[in-house]
Each structure stands twice: as structure tokens, then as C-alpha cells.
């Protein structure tokens, strides 16, 4: 037994001493190259994951045995032409650079169908729509009066009238909503009489409440936290009022000398006229001074102009001025000087999508480590991915921040951002003239009004249910692709 044990022990030890370094080398991407130029060669890999999964992969025109998602290993550093094909979908083709010991990963390759298929959800005709992000409902308009406003429930797949009350004949003058909130507030006008109504879409029974009494003082800006729509914050003439809709109480001049404000996650952010930035809880308690650098504030904020404040976890603040200038709490602070129409933050990729009339830009908050050696600190990086376009009105992050869906006039395009090349755009669909669209990342569907009939239609941008989870821990930061957007 002793001899047997020793033989076995030394056999295992020898096997381990051989296997271990070979496995480590393999894991690091080193392979043995036979032939005249034999020796260990540093290799890289390409990782591809597609939606829908199961697509065929061709590497330099040679069919790769495994379908996507796939990891192609042992690639000698070089540029590789990769083509992905799937019946019914447009071929995806790109040149992917492979570097030694590095992985070139495309986690979110979205295969676009050869023909976009849409489905009619409800018949109109409608003139416009608005997605209520916090409630899985879409507000549909067939005219200007409140009685011509409808709610389409995405869950129940049914349409409901907004109002059968005395407010039904009022004309909708303005409409306020907050991302993530299931509440919409209407400013209604009838014979110069102004009323306000709160539509709560959080319950099965949509509730329209007249809240004119609490908003009697009037306002220029109205906001509330997506978590608590009972507390409204109104700004007028540098004064912030706090209104409790449930009790009907108004706390006038809740904060004075206010240049801008925002409400997020039970917190109130206030930019004072002296340039200080304060964060409190939604009751105004527990104040924290976020910035007291008045000199910097004077440089980055336009005096006398109102700023909307948006907070994104964990620590990103975006401030948008009334003249369309965009400021963040990361260097270089003042990012865009004017004409920002809309923006959307991707928590996943830590990137802000910025839309101007003719420009579409991406502000990247994930500070690239490769730039950390630079003499000047880099806090965020802005890249204009589309330039000299006409009438760009809406833009959405699609498929975990890998693609951008945007509306230019009446046309919807999708921009492939998951690429090592310049982003490619594809036409998706034409929508009703002057109408908005709504994209839901939860369902992967685009909701729009048909160009000719005005019916509400949905279109599958990516097949949400079919996406396979990648067998790796979820990446928290996007992969850096050098200057692809320049």
C-alpha cells in the first residue's frame, strides 16, 4: 500500500506540475505554436452574444462551429472580419481588432430584422402619445380636450378614457410628468379659467383628482419625487413652495432664493442663487451642503436662469438650464452650452444620451482608467455620435445601453453603439407626422402612431424574452473602444 500510495502521489504531483502551468498559460491566452516559428504565442479572444441567440458566426469568412453566444479563443493578434447571420435578420458584419491577452467582447449584438414587424394595439386615430414610464401606460391624445385623452394599459392591453368628469371639456394647456412616476398632472383651461388635475395611474382604477386649490398660487416649474407624488414642489420667482396634495396644505416659500431644483429618491436638490447646492430629504430636513464653491458656480451656471436638477445613483447630478445648457457634477462640469432638447441616462452603462436639434451625443461618466495618467483629470467625456441632422426630437437607450433609438422628424432610426467601428444607423419605421414615440426597455417594444391611420402600434426592437444570460459576471462598466465615436 505504501509503495502504491507513493507511486500514485508522485503521479498526481507530476500531473499537477505539468497541468497547472499549462492551464494558467491557456487562461492567460498563451498557446504553443508549432512549426518553424515555434514557441508560446500570446493570443486574444472575441466574445459575441447576440439577440436573438443562436446566430451563425463567420470569422474571416470561415464558419465557426459554435453559434452565438460564443467565445472564439486562441486568436493571434490581428483584425478579424466577423459576420453574423440568422434567417430573417440582416447580416451583421464588422472588423474586430484582437490584441494579445485581451478580450474583444460584444455582449449586446442586436440582429435587426429584414422587415420590421408591427402590431396594432388599438385603433385611433390619435394625434400624439406620451409614455408614462412609471406605470406601464401610454397616454394617447386624439384632440386638445381632456375628453380626447385616453390611457392605454400595456398590461391589460385595453384603452380607457381619462375623464368623464366636469373637467372633460377643458383644453389641456400643459402636461407635467416625472420619469419613474405613475402620476401625470394636467394644466387645463376653459374660458381663461385655469384648473389642475392629477391623474394617478398606479392603481387598477385610474384616478383623476382636481388639485386646483393647492396650485392656486401658480408656478413656473412643477416637480415631484417619483416615489412620492403627494408632495409637489412649485417654483416661481426664485421661491420654492411645497404642496401636500393629500392634505391640501401649502407651505409657501419653503425655500427662498432658489435658482433651480429637482426631486429624486425622497430627496430634494436645491441650487441657491448664491451658487450653493443643497440636498435635503423630501420634508426639507437633514440638509447637506453639496457645493459651496460659489466661484465655480458663477462660472458654470448662467445667472438668473432656472436649472432643472436630476440625480442618478450613485452620484451623478445633471443640471439643465432653461436655455438648454447642460451641467454635470463631473469635470468639465459645463458640458453643453445651449439647445439641449432632451437627455436620457443609462444606469447600466453610466452614459448620458444628449439630444440637440442637429446633434446626438453621448456623455460617458465611466472614467476610462487608461486616461487616468493624463495631466488633466477626466471626469466625463462627450462624443457627438451624430452630426448635422434635421429635427431630431427624441432618443432612447436600447438593449442595456448598447444601441440608440432616435426620432428624426417622422422617421425612427436605430444606431448600433455595440461596435468597434463607427456606429451604424438603420431605418426602423415612419411614424405619424408630429407625434411622439415611446420605447420601453422592459418589453423591448417601440410604441408609435401609424403614419397613415393614427392607430397605436408596437414594434419589437429586440426580443427581450429570448436573450440568453452570458456565462460571466455582469460587467458593470462598458468596454472602452478607443475613439470609435469621434
Amino acid at each position, binding site marked *: *500500500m505504501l509503495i502504491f*500510495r507513493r507511486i*500514485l502521489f508522485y503521479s*498526481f504531483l507530476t500531473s499537477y506540475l505539468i497541468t*497547472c502551468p499549462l492551464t494558467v498559460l491557456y487562461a*492567460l*491566452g498563451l498557446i504553443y505554436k508549432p512549426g518553424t516559428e515555434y514557441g508560446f504565442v500570446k493570443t486574444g479572444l472575441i*466574445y459575441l452574444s447576440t439577440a436573438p441567440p443562436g446566430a451563425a458566426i463567420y470569422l474571416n469568412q470561415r464558419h465557426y462551429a459554435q453559434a452565438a453566444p460564443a467565445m472564439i479563443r486562441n486568436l493571434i493578434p490581428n483584425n478579424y472580419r466577423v459576420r453574423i447571420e440568422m434567417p430573417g435578420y440582416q447580416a451583421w458584419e464588422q472588423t474586430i481588432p484582437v490584441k494579445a491577452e485581451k478580450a474583444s467582447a460584444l455582449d449586446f449584438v442586436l440582429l435587426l430584422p429584414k422587415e420590421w414587424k408591427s402590431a396594432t394595439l388599438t385603433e385611433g386615430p390619435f394625434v400624439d402619445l406620451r409614455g408614462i414610464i412609471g406605470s406601464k401606460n401610454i397616454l394617447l391624445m386624439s384632440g386638445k380636450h381632456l375628453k380626447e385623452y385616453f390611457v392605454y394599459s400595456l398590461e391589460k392591453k385595453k384603452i380607457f378614457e381619462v375623464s368623464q368628469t366636469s373637467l372633460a371639456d377643458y383644453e389641456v394647456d400643459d402636461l407635467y410628468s416625472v420619469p419613474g412616476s405613475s402620476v401625470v398632472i394636467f394644466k387645463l383651461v376653459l374660458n381663461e379659467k385655469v384648473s389642475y388635475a392629477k391623474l394617478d395611474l398606479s392603481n387598477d382604477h385610474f384616478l383623476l383628482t382636481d388639485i386646483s386649490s393647492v396650485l392656486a398660487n401658480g408656478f413656473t416649474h412643477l416637480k415631484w419625487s417619483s416615489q412620492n407624488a403627494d408632495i409637489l414642489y412649485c417654483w416661481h420667482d426664485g421661491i420654492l413652495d411645497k404642496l401636500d396634495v393629500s392634505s391640501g396644505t401649502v407651505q409657501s416659500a419653503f425655500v427662498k432664493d432658489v435658482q433651480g431644483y429637482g426631486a429624486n429618491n425622497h430627496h430634494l436638490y436645491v441650487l441657491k442663487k448664491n451658487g450653493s447646492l443643497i440636498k435635503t430629504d423630501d420634508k426639507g430636513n437633514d440638509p447637506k451642503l453639496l457645493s459651496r464653491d460659489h466661484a465655480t458656480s458663477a462660472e458654470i451656471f448662467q445667472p438668473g436662469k432656472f436649472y432643472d436638477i436630476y440625480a442618478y445613483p450613485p452620484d451623478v447630478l445633471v443640471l439643465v438650464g432653461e436655455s438648454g445648457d447642460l451641467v454635470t457634477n463631473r469635470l468639465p462640469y459645463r458640458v453643453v452650452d445651449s439647445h439641449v432638447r432632451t437627455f436620457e441616462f443609462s444606469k447600466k452603462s453610466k452614459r448620458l444620451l444628449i439630444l440637440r436639434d442637429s446633434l446626438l451625443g453621448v456623455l460617458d461618466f465611466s472614467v476610462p482608467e487608461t486616461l487616468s495618467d493624463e495631466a488633466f483629470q477626466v471626469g466625463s467625456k462627450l462624443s457627438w455620435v451624430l452630426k448635422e441632422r434635421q429635427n431630431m426630437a427624441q432618443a432612447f437607450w436600447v438593449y442595456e445601453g448598447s444601441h440608440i433609438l432616435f426620432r428624426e422628424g417622422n422617421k425612427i432610426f436605430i444606431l448600433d453603439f455595440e461596435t468597434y467601428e463607427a456606429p451604424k444607423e438603420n431605418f426602423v419605421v415612419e411614424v405619424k407626422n408630429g407625434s411622439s414615440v415611446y420605447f420601453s426597455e422592459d418589453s423591448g417594444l417601440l410604441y408609435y402612431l401609424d403614419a397613415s391611420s393614427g392607430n397605436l402600434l408596437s414594434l419589437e426592437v429586440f426580443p427581450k424574452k429570448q436573450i440568453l444570460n452570458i456565462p460571466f459576471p455582469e*460587467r458593470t462598466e462598458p*468596454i472602452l473602444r478607443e475613439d470609435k465615436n469621434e
Partner: protein
Amino acid sequence: MTFMYSARNLGKKDQILQRFFEILPGAASWTILVGLFWLSISKPVTASVLVIAFLLFWIFRLSYMTIFLLISYFRLAAEKNTDWMLRVKSLSGTRNVFADLLAREGSKKFKDIISSWIYESELKQYFNRGALTPSFESLIHLVVIPIAKEIYEIIEPGIQSLIQNTFPTDQMIVVLAVEERATDEVKRSAKVVQDAFSKFFKDFLVVIHPHEISGEAMVKGANATYAARKMTNYFKDCHIELERVVVSCFDADTVVHPNYFACLTYHYLISENREQASFQPIPVYNNNIWEAHGFARVLEMGSSFFQLIEATNPEKLVTFSSHSMSFKTLVQVGYWSVEMISDDSSIFWKAFIHFDGNYRVIPLPVTLSMDVVDAGSWWKTACNVYKQKRRWAWGVENFPILMRAFLKSSQISLWDKMKHGIKMFESHVSWATWAIILAVIGWLPALYAGREFSETVLYYSAPRIAGIIFRLSTVVLVTTIVLSLYMLPKTKVRFPFIRRCLLAAQWCLLPWIFIFLGALPALDAQTRLMFGAYMEFWVTDKNKRRSMKDESVAKLEEGAGKFESGAGGN
């Protein structure tokens, strides 16, 4: 070598050495865990490479151990039907020495062939030595059973198993070593057991261990030692030479195999330098296996497997739990430690140092069964199991004493010092770290991957390699499950198929069990030793989920008030 096997009353130099070696295992375990954690976050590439190297080492070691587990199991199975008493009689000349071989001649059973082959080779060695063997009839088996809070239901099955042994019980003396601090019920139970079973043995004694004897800690070894000292006087009084006595120290719940004493006697008689050896059976935890909680069952099954593997390596084998040895040797080495919790392993090290490394453990291919920890609710049981495993892991207290002894000894070979020192250190450190590395820290490089690491080939390769290794480990797991089913007792239970399936499924709890009831208690014990927070003995709850028989209650009542302290007997 004369060496005081103790951590107390040391000189200044010894104190420093003692503290250094007390700190070493805990410091090593924490350095490995914290170091890997730090590397996973700050140097993920290095951490991933280390984790891959560790995973490979783990799967190689696991496969290696599984081979020996299978060998050990087959050895155990091969001797299942061996008539050990026939072999004992053969050695003593009362039967033909080849009687056992003749009985199996012609048998084509693989088990019989293996058993006969081993017996034949042992006989060859025995005859080549030409040594004189004492007659088995001259031997006396002393069974010491320390009792702290075990009542009749716990003790009685063990005594019954002694009676049912194939070895003549009139050559056995049983001593119930009862703590003075034990409850009256426990003391009464001991007396009831004595009254009920003394007629079956040469003698049956109850020895009360006085509370708070100077120099003793509240440990099981102190109780057993007190009883053994009493028995030394007893043997002198009865004119029984100590050479004739083989002592077995059993836990109160130990149920021995019917062949245990015959097998022990055979191995005692046939072994060279029999007085410089301990005899280690395979402990299994079958007494209440069907009633115990799943996680406790899996854990104890794991302990049995560990002992099976250890049994294949007598060169490095150390006594564990219930075991046997020459009583003369026990007296020579100064009995069991009266201040250490790990009395079962420390007695081996005491003897090993006393005989300058010329002491060994001989594995016995026979089982003895104990109770799986069961304290009622799963939470209480888990707490009990945790404390029990921490107590086992407290065996690390031997490391500093052993190292001091090794440094002082010039007689023990450097090879033996290295062999045993490294093994003890490595086994305790791996006990505290492996499960945590496998289940938690090994995944951290990928989970906390920054951009730089997540763009490397290694980031994508590491999970794939880990996946392959874990898939390979399922082969070992399946082998273990199959063996665990084979090792179950043959007692009849309701829904046997379903219960066996459930038992197999419970092995899925292994990762959690190994962390919370394996690595953490070991880390706890090592950390306590590192900081000098020394532990005292804590008796595990081992309830029998059955009510005391009416007859037993009557006996207990009958025994009440009749208890006499001190050595008794008939």
C-alpha cells in the same frame, strides 16, 4: 524523550515559542483569506491565476483522496465477514493458523480473495519476525467511557454492543468515568447501567471524577485519566500485569461492531512492537442517522469518509475519537492530557514524543458507530454541530506543543518532524480556508472586475476553467453519495427508497455545510488560539429521539439513592 506535553507552566523561552506556534496557523489562514480578498480587488489577474492554480490543486487532491476512499471502503467491505475471533484463536495456537484461509479456500468472491491475501501477507511477516505472541486468553480489555451528561438511553446501546461482541466479555472490564459535576440523573443512570450489565463482564466499575482537581481543566481527558489512574491501582491490587491490558477509550454513545474487540485483539497480537501503537477503528455516525437533520448527517458522513481516507495512510495516521492502545503505554506516557480538549489526538503525540517517534497508529478495518449531533430543532443542532466542529478544530492546540517538542528532540528524525509538522499545519489551514476560497473568494476577481481586468482573456477564461473543474468534481460527489448510501445501516425504515433519495439529495448542501460548519468553526478555533482565548470542553447534545423504555425508567428509579462514589464492582 521526557517532555511535558502541556501548554502550561512553561519557561520564558518556551512561552515565546508556544505563543509563536499558537499564532502561526491562524495567522496563515487569515493571511491566505485576506490576502486573496485583497488581491481579488487590487490585482485581479494575479488573484485569478492563483485561484486557477488552487482549483486545479483541489481537484487533483480530491481525486487522489477519492481513490483512497474507495480503497479504504473496499478494504472495510472485504473484512466485513471476516471471522476475527478465528484468526485470534489461530494466532494463540488454539486453532490451526491457516483455519481462516482454509475456510475461504476456493471462494471466488473478490472480497474473500483480498481478505485472504492481506491475512496471508500479515502471517508471513509475523512468522518471519519469529516473535512470541501472548495468548489472547491472557489479555484483558479495559473500556473507559467518560460521562458528563449522557443518560441511560445514550449509554445503554454501547454497553449492549460490548456484550454482543464475539470476543469473550469475561475478559473485559468496563469503567464508567462519571463527572462529579454531572446531574443526579446522569449519576443514577451510570449506576443503573452498572447494576444491569455488570454480570456480563469481568468487572464493571463506576468511577466518579472529583470536580476541580488542581492542574486539571474541564476536559474529557481529565475524567478518563482519573479513571485510568484508579484502574492502575486496581490492576496492581488484583495482580494483573499492565502488559496484559488493552485500553479503549470510547465516547458514551459509541456502539462497537460485534467484531471490534476480536479485530483489535488480532491486530494487537500480530503487530510488531504492539505496545508502541494505537489502534484506530473507522468511526461512523449511524446510531441515529435516520432521525438526524440532513446537514448534520452529511457532515458526519464526511467525517467518516475522512477517517476512511486517513486509514489508508498509517504513516501519518493520528488517533481520533474512540481508539485503543496498550494500558502499560498509557501509564508510561502519563495518561491522557488533563488540560487539553483534544485528548484523543494528544495521546498519540504524547506517545510519539515519549518513544522518540517510534510510535504509530494501526488502522482497524472495523467500524464503531456514534450519534450524529441532534439537539432537537435544526437551529439548535446547527449551533451544537458548530461547537462540536470547533472543538475538533481545537486540535490545533497540539501544533505549538508538538513544534516545541520537535525543536527539542534530537532523536526524532527530521523527516518525521517535517512529515507530521507540515501535515498538521496544512490540514488545519486547509480546513479553515479551502471552503471559503472555493465558494466565496474564488469568485471575487470576476465579480469585482474593473475595466482593465474585464477586457482580458483571463476574465473570460477563468469562469470557464472553474466550470470544467467543478463539473469534474461532481464525479467525486457522485462517488461519495453512492458510498454514503452503501454505508447506511441495514435497519428497516419506512419508505427506504424515498429516504435514500432524500439522503443523496442532501449532499447538495455540501458547499454551505463546508463553509458554515466546516471552515468557520476551524477559523474560529484558530483565531481563538491566535489571540490566546483558550477553549474549555463543551459536551455535544446527542439526543435519542425515542422515549426511555418503561423497564429502563424502573431501573433508574430502582438505582436512585443507591449510588456510591469511587471504584466499585463485583
